[in-house]
């Protein structure tokens, strides 16, 4: 994944507060009456005995199909094939089924039941791919090769003279302007090419927290580069303070 595909959103939490609880559901989401199929799913899953068992079997079959399809769709992003791939699909489907049954009371009909349920298995696939990355890691976290940066952003090596000054300025800003945590996340994702979900596992964190850390790092770096004349202008986000940002999101 190119680093420019990995961005961050700041939920405006104070720097270093990356383990803060997730923000509440967006208030604009409205409940609605269940469609017939969704009502049937919830009725069966909330019942007992054979009706519930049959619904669980059918739901597991659906989740397994979605997990397999999603792992195939992401085939270019991981090296997993054969029985190992199918095992991962089974793990994702089983864990998603457990999560769905535990959170069934949280389904309020904002979408079809199946779309709500599929979200669980898609997220399980992401989590499991992040964990799997460290079984056969293709990167080392103990090296920093800043000369890789232009390639990571698709710059032509022939333009070395053009980007050398910018790389040096960015390196300097990473060292001087970022917190230790921001620097670690930036280097891992941008320089070393660690997938964000894999870094989540490595740091024992969560996606939202790592995203916010990187988001704050990006904002600082862009402001520094703009102030030193390396980028044309600072965008509006660069001048939004954490407190202002917090207020906007509350």
């Amino acid at each position: 994944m190119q680093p420019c595909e990995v961005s961050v959103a700041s939920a405006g939490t104070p720097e270093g507060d990356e383990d803060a609880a997730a923000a509440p559901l967006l208030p604009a989401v409205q409940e609605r009456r269940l469609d017939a199929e969704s009502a049937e799913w919830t009725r069966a899953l909330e019942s007992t005995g054979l009706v519930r068992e049959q619904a669980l079997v059918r739901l597991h079959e659906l989740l397994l199909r979605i997990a397999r399809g999603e792992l195939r769709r992401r085939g270019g992003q991981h090296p997993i094939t054969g029985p190992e791939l199918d095992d991962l699909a089974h793990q994702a489907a089983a864990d998603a089924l457990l999560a769905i049954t535990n959170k069934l009371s949280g389904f309020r009909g904002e979408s079809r039941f199946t779309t709500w349920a599929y979200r669980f298995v898609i997220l399980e696939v992401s989590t499991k791919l992040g964990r799997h990355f460290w079984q056969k890691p293709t990167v080392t976290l103990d090296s920093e090769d800043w000369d890789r940066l232009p390639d990571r952003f698709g710059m032509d090596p022939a333009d070395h003279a053009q980007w050398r000054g910018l790389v040096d300025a960015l390196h300097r800003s990473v060292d001087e302007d970022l917190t230790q945590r921001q620097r670690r996340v930036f280097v891992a994702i941008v320089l070393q090419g660690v997938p964000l979900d894999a870094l989540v596992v490595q740091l024992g964190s969560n996606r939202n927290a790592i995203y916010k850390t990187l988001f704050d790092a990006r904002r600082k770096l862009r402001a520094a580069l703009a102030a030193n004349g390396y980028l044309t202008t600072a965008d509006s986000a660069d001048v939004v303070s954490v407190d202002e940002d917090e207020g906007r999101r509350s």
Partner: protein
Amino acid sequence: MTDWPPLDRFLATDPRDVGCAQALEILHVYVEMVLDDADGSAARYPGVAAHLAACGPCDEDFQGLLAAAGIPS
């Protein structure tokens, strides 16, 4: 002045971006809105749209759920 568009885009941040937690919390709702009306979904949830445009992992989940939701159950 050294313009480097890919780096410039990577470092740019959108203050509307709601972050991963909120985007993923309503991803199922957003996906169905996109299936119904792609333009309308971005207008109704600009913070989610901004996030998905910036966050590779969440956009991957979005694309996966979008594909899954389009499959008859």
